[in-house]
């Protein structure tokens, strides 16, 4: 299988405070196509920092990140935005959606950014909402949806752009256990059926249990990497 993401000796040091914070220490990590991988570890261990760097949202202090062989470390801001749009799906912890757009419009929006035509946008948006069991809420705005429903729409949006992989930073952190299980099952199902690659972070044991590969971070370093 092809390597999608390859991080080499990635370090991140924050100089905001008097004492510099080493959020990541020379992390080496590669993700293959079709993985369903969890980045785990206690709060503050560097999960968000790592995912942001893998997704081209932040630059490492040293080291490099290649995605499908393309080095994104020194990419120009505007090119990086386009690169993210075409290659990476994002799901954040909360407030993923544009509040004034309905569920289906939110999913459509990312395809609008890709300049897909209207027919294709609508068809795919409804198809994905159906897959995420959100068809009945298609015309509701995020404010009218529960946290779990919002995250399902966010996953639908992430899939809509047909990205090479999806990064999800603690997607279940704000959800109750039923919604958490539901969201993870849906993600796992899509991973299995469509070979969609997921990399997500969590510190929730029940979520870890669903992952096929567990990468454990501690104080900015990978301390274990288990594939089941």
């Amino acid at each position, binding site marked *: 299988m092809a390597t999608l993401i390859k991080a080499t000796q990635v370090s991140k040091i924050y100089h905001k405070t008097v004492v510099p914070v080493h959020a990541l220490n020379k992390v080496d990590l590669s993700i293959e196509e079709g993985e369903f991988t969890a980045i785990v570890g206690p709060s503050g261990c560097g999960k968000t920092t790592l995912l942001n760097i893998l997704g081209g949202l932040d630059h490492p202090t040293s080291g490099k990140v290649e995605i499908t062989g393309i080095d994104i470390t020194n990419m120009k801001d505007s090119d990086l935005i386009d690169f993210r749009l075409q290659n990476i799906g994002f799901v954040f912890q909360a*407030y993923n959606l544009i509040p*004034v757009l309905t569920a289906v419009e939110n999913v459509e929006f*990312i395809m609008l950014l890709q300049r897909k035509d209207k027919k294709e946008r609508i068809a795919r948006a409804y198809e994905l909402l159906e897959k995420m069991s959100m068809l009945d809420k298609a015309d509701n705005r995020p404010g009218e949806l529960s946290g779990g429903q919002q995250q399902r729409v966010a996953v639908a949006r992430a899939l809509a752009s047909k990205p090479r992989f999806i990064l999800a930073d603690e997607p279940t952190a704000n959800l109750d256990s039923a919604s958490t299980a539901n969201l993870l099952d849906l993600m796992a199902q899509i991973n299995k059926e469509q070979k969609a690659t997921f990399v997500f972070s969590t510190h929730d044991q029940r979520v870890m249990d669903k992952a096929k590969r567990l990468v454990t971070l501690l104080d900015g370093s990978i301390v274990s990497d288990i594939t089941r």
Partner: protein
Amino acid sequence: MYLTLAWRNIWRNKRRSLITVFSITFAVLLACFMRSMQLGAYARMIDNSVRFYTGYIQIHKSGYWTDKVIDNSFNYDLTLQNKVKAIEGVILDVPRLESFTLTSFRNQIKGAFVMGVDPQRENELTNVKDKIVEGGYLNQDDDGIALAEGLAEYLKIKVGDTLTLLSQGYHGANAAGLFPVRCIIKFSLPQQNNSVIYMALPSAQWFYAAPDLITSVSLLIDTPDNTDRIVAELKSHVNLDELEVMGWHDLVPDLLQSIELDNISGKVMLWILYLVIGFGMFGTYLMMTAERQYEFGVMLAIGMRRMRLQALIVLEISIMTILGVAQGIALSLPLLTYFHYHPIVYGKEAAKAIESFGVEAIYPFSLDLVIFTNQAYAIFIMAIILSAYPVWSIYRMKVVESMRA
């Protein structure tokens, strides 16, 4: 969809957006009202003195304008008349012989201003017939006179009575005569209303012993914009040692100066108004940007180009501005149209004070298109300048930082 997005974003904070839109509406309304009143008054003032008195262009004997005496008169002969009429844009030439006189009726005596005119052409220029309040207008070779209302009142003279005039004629000749009053004319400008006597040109030339002579020719032209061109053409056609040609800017310089001064103060007021409104608009833009940092961060993260996000905000700002401006114009248009056709008339007391400055005591409103377009431009330019802030802030935004908050 961008339009839908912008539209819905505007109404996320209904109260704030409404306040912004209405403050723009209010500013446009107030500004249009102010400007309409000012420009209306200026146009009226210029009309009063130019259109209905001096004409747009005058020809005199050289030196007459600085020394307005009957000795500075000239012969407006046929050759000259033909030259003047041949110029494109000249509609009418109105000859006048103007000088001072003493008037006397029973035991009243008063100084007055005689205007020897071609009654028909004078009427074409100044619509003097419409201002007659009593009696009938002068014939072409009438030996009577038309009296201004204020003067007639002072002299306690009526139509049909005979007025005695005493003055000095051309080259020191004695001038004396008896003139029956044919009609009374009401002028809007008090200076005119208290002093003018109209006389048919032949009578005036006889009275002042100045046969064939006049002191000025006033020209009615097709549009004021042609003034400079026609003046230049006239100057090339006449002997400038003998005659002087003046456009209305030179004929009423004091008026123009006071208008310009007033106009500046009006504009300063407008800028103050815009400044106040501008602060309000800026506050809205500031909050619009600040409270949506996280959302903007998400949009940049998932792949929305900064330019598009900036365009979205500018679109939101533009929509609010258009709504405000359109509403302002929509409200001011009928209001100003009403006041244009029903000008505000001052109360008696105020009217007297204003008329004593030589200005008519009504407030005509202008409907000049410029009034509306200028306010629209001003607000739009301001909105564009102020929207630089959100545009700049999106340009500088760091995805990770905006999403950490």
